């Protein structure tokens, strides 16, 4: 008999085929499932790390952007402040200068007025003296007699005072 019957049970053959299945199961687990799953897991972690990196970069960029924005804002404020201060300073100086120049002008005017008054007074004094002298000489000549200057001083002064009032 060279062939098995169509239905022939043999316990050893059954055990061998059972073990065959177990062996193939172990082979598949070791050489197909484990490496493939490892690679899938590895790729998963890689993808996640890439996503993490991208999120981190995004965060950093956002942070940088906001810091720049705030810096820009403060710079704008500072510029505004500087301009304002400069304007105020200029205004103040302007006022001071205006005040000073006005003062100066006034003092010049005052001085000029005083000068004018003094020269007027000087002139009056000079004119008065001239008049006294002239009148003294005139009276001397008119009276043709010696006049005692001391006696007649009061008379002359009164005359000049009258002259002053008329002038």
């Amino acid at each position: 008999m060279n062939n098995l019957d169509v239905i022939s049970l043999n316990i050893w053959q059954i055990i061998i085929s059972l073990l065959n299945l177990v062996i193939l199961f172990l082979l598949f687990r070791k050489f197909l499932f484990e490496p493939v799953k490892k690679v899938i897991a590895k790729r998963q972690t890689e993808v996640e790390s890439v996503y993490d990196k991208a999120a981190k970069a995004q965060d950093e960029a956002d942070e940088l952007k906001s810091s720049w924005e705030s810096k820009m804002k403060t710079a704008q404020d500072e510029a505004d402040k500087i301009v304002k201060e400069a304007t105020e300073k200029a205004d103040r100086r302007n006022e001071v200068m205006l005040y000073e120049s006005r003062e100066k002008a006034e003092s010049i005017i005052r001085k000029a007025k005083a000068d004018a008054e003094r020269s007027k007074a000087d002139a009056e004094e000079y004119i008065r003296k001239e008049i006294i002298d002239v009148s003294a000489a005139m009276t001397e000549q008119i009276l043709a007699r010696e006049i005692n200057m001391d006696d007649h001083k009061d008379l002359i002064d009164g005359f000049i005072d009258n002259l002053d009032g008329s002038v």
Partner: protein
Amino acid sequence: MTVLLLILSIIPLIAGILIKVLYVPASEGIDISGAHIFFTIDLPLGGLPITESQVNSWLVILSLFFFCLFLTHGLKTKNMSRRQIIAEWIVNTVDNLVKTNMGEFFMGFGPFIAAMLGLSACSSLLTLIGLFPPTSDINVTGGWALLTFILITYYKFKAGPLIYIKSFGDPVPFLAPLNIISEVATPISMAFRHYGNVLSGSIISILIANLLTNVSKMIFGFLPGYLGGFPYLRVGLPAILSIYFDLFSGALQAFIFAMLTMLYVSGGFPEDEYFKRKRIKEAKKKQQVIENTNGGV
């Protein structure tokens, strides 16, 4: 390296053809018999005949092993090769199958189901290259069914022997004998279903081939000499039929066998009781630890 592994995975199949050509005598006419016996090892319980079904099983395993290596060598995380895509597709498909049919608890069954599918389908498909399909040997499918039965019983026992015994009196206690019979019938029916389908396929193939030979002898018998004896009708027609009987039936039976294994193993597993028992055990352990630390203090 890649090509070498692919060649290595094909070599077992060529070796199978060579062995068949060299050692198995060609059968004449209608000859329905089991596998050819190469030699017998003396063992108790009837001895161990090394037959075509054993040898072809080993060749299939070798071929699948090298094919695995071919698929999985040089796996990368970027710029995947086509081989890697196939490997990942196989793994993901089988894992999804296990997940939907068995649940998260049985995820370790992925390689087992893949092995069952691969071994069964490839064994049946050996008929395509003219080899004896090991699945048409009752001992081969019987071994697998026995393993399934062991797994079913193992997972039923996981929640304790009491629940295992109780499960036989399930709807009503007096149905226990029927439950025991159906328990035993499960692996037997699985083994016979697979074996019967493949065997009937090859028997029908033989019958049709024989019929076509006779018909072509009748029609073309008038031709002189060797020309008259040539079975013209056997060219082509059996190939079309073998698409159903070998390809479709083989793949379908492999799928059915794996599917039934998954359903029986996960269906027999008393999940609720198992987790309840686990919780109780863990609580006990914790209490013991607390008591020990208290005693130590």
